[in-house]
């Protein structure tokens, strides 16, 4: 039972990479706009369908299709920000929840109406391939997702800390009014941040397509995990999303193996509640974050 432990941890870390990938966009949007985007999972679903159709109709590799899918969804995200998010930015928190929740129900059922409830899968030459490194077997698609998550997180952290735009963004998070007095175009930054957050969801969707089923309600399955990860890591923290994702991934793999598969999800949800109770701001969040967004 114990000899398999290194393999379990390795697989857990790879799954954790996928979870991190799910959560980075969500945490970015919360960090900047102070809005919990309940529709984030649906943007991932949209990207998965984009990659799926590109593969089925045109024979394009799902990873390659990201070059088209991501800009399209980025643009859709900007439109959503313009017509929905901007209007509720300073509304009561219940309205913010309902707006993004309504968006999620709407997108899910648009997909259901036009594309039907069927599960689709994309098979590529590397779908079932795996590498053996130091006696550990690592699946190619998970490894790629893991690497993508790390690169994406590093890129975002680099952008936030070392570029002019990133500094403006952080200034706006600290004090929206003061930042606008210093000449920061807060409206433009909001739109950009939401577009980027949703764009991260699109990248995630393209990477998930070869390893997961594509169906209209896939977002619901994914978003719950993403919430758990983001709350664990700290809402608004990109590094937190990565660490949180890895922890959940390992915890789930271990309980799945040593206890039972049914309890895999229960453990993650219990961890979620426990974290909310002991440290509501999460591992990397600043104290008080959980109060914000309530006006």
């Amino acid at each position, binding site marked *: 039972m114990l000899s398999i432990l290194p393999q379990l941890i390795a697989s857990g870390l790879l799954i954790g990479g996928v979870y991190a990938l799910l959560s980075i966009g969500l945490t970015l949007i919360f960090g900047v706009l102070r809005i919990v985007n309940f529709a984030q999972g649906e943007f991932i679903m949209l990207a998965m369908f984009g990659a799926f159709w590109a593969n089925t109709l045109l024979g394009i590799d799902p990873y390659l299709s990201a070059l088209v899918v991501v800009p399209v969804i980025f643009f859709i995200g900007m439109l959503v920000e313009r017509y929905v998010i901007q209007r509720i930015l300073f509304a009561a*928190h219940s309205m913010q929840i309902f707006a993004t929740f309504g968006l999620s129900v709407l997108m*899910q059922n648009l997909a259901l109406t036009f594309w039907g409830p069927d599960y689709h899968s994309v098979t590529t030459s590397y779908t079932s391939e795996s590498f053996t490194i130091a006696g550990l077997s690592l699946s190619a698609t998970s490894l790629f997702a893991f690497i993508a998550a790390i690169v994406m997180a590093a890129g975002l952290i680099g952008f936030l800390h070392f570029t002019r735009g990133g500094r403006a963004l952080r200034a706006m998070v600290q004090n929206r009014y003061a930042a606008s007095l210093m000449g920061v175009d807060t409206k433009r930054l909001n739109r950009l941040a939401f577009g980027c957050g949703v764009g991260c969801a699109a990248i995630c969707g393209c990477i998930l397509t070869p390893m997961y089923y594509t169906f209209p309600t896939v977002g619901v399955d994914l978003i719950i995990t993403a919430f758990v990860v983001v709350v664990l890591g700290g809402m608004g923290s990109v590094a937190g999303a990565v660490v949180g994702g890895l922890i959940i991934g390992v915890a789930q793999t271990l309980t799945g193996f040593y206890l039972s598969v049914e309890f895999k999800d229960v453990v993650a949800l219990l961890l979620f509640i426990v974290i909310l109770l002991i440290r509501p701001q999460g591992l990397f969040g600043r104290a008080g974050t959980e109060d914000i967004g*309530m006006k």
Partner: protein
Amino acid sequence: MNDYYLNIIVMTFLWAALSGAWNLMAGYGGLVSLGQSAFFGIGAYTTAVLYATFGISPWLGLVFGVLLTTSTAVLISWPCFRLRGAFFSLATLVFPIVMEILANNWNSVTRGSSGIALPFKPSLENFIFESRWAYVLASFVLMMVVLGITQWIHRGRLGLYLIAMRDDQDAAESMGVEPVRIKLIITMISAALTSVGGFFYAQYILFLDPPSVFSINISVQIALFSLIGGLGTPFGPIVGSLIMTPLDGALSAFLGGGPRLLIYGGVLLAVVLVAPQGVVGTYTAWRKK
């Protein structure tokens, strides 16, 4: 009147009652729970299991269901009261998911995913009736009870505490309102009423399986009706249900499941963006002008 229309009337009253119970927490207290279906499902399952498996009268099941739901509600929401705003909603979203996993896997009691069918033996003692008119009456009474409790809270001290806490918890606390106590009271009332709704559902539909009572769609529908009618008003949930339940019946007859929820999502978004005060709130504001 044929059964199809009577069914829509029963559902209208039942949804008004469930939505009204949610409105107490969310509309007055600002506790936007997305997990009401957990309370609904526990109420439904308790009576169903006791009646179908052990032959215990649903009336006793009702009492047990309410007690079990209320104590579960206290146990799981108490810790969550530390969370505010969207974080509270996130935490409540988890309850029905855990309950559904539990109901699916606890085969010896809940019969897992195959569900529980309640034997149809009409009598007052079993709370099962031949005529749908009896259900119309019962659901109407339930709706009026919820309305009465809401009116009582709305006019009384508790309502003021709740609204003060919803609008600014820190200020309310400094004026001597005890947030945890108030939140606990309103959650217990809301959970108990939702549980009675679950009991009614089980006795009316006579079949339960985990997704039919713990589904997230139930929580969405409950919230949507209050929102359309007017959040934080006694009549809001009733107005919302009067508009939406018959519409929903007509839509599902013509369109089927997918497009129906499509319209739900669209309506939810439209209400938030165009008339966040709902029908009752907008009407009141218009009359005051």
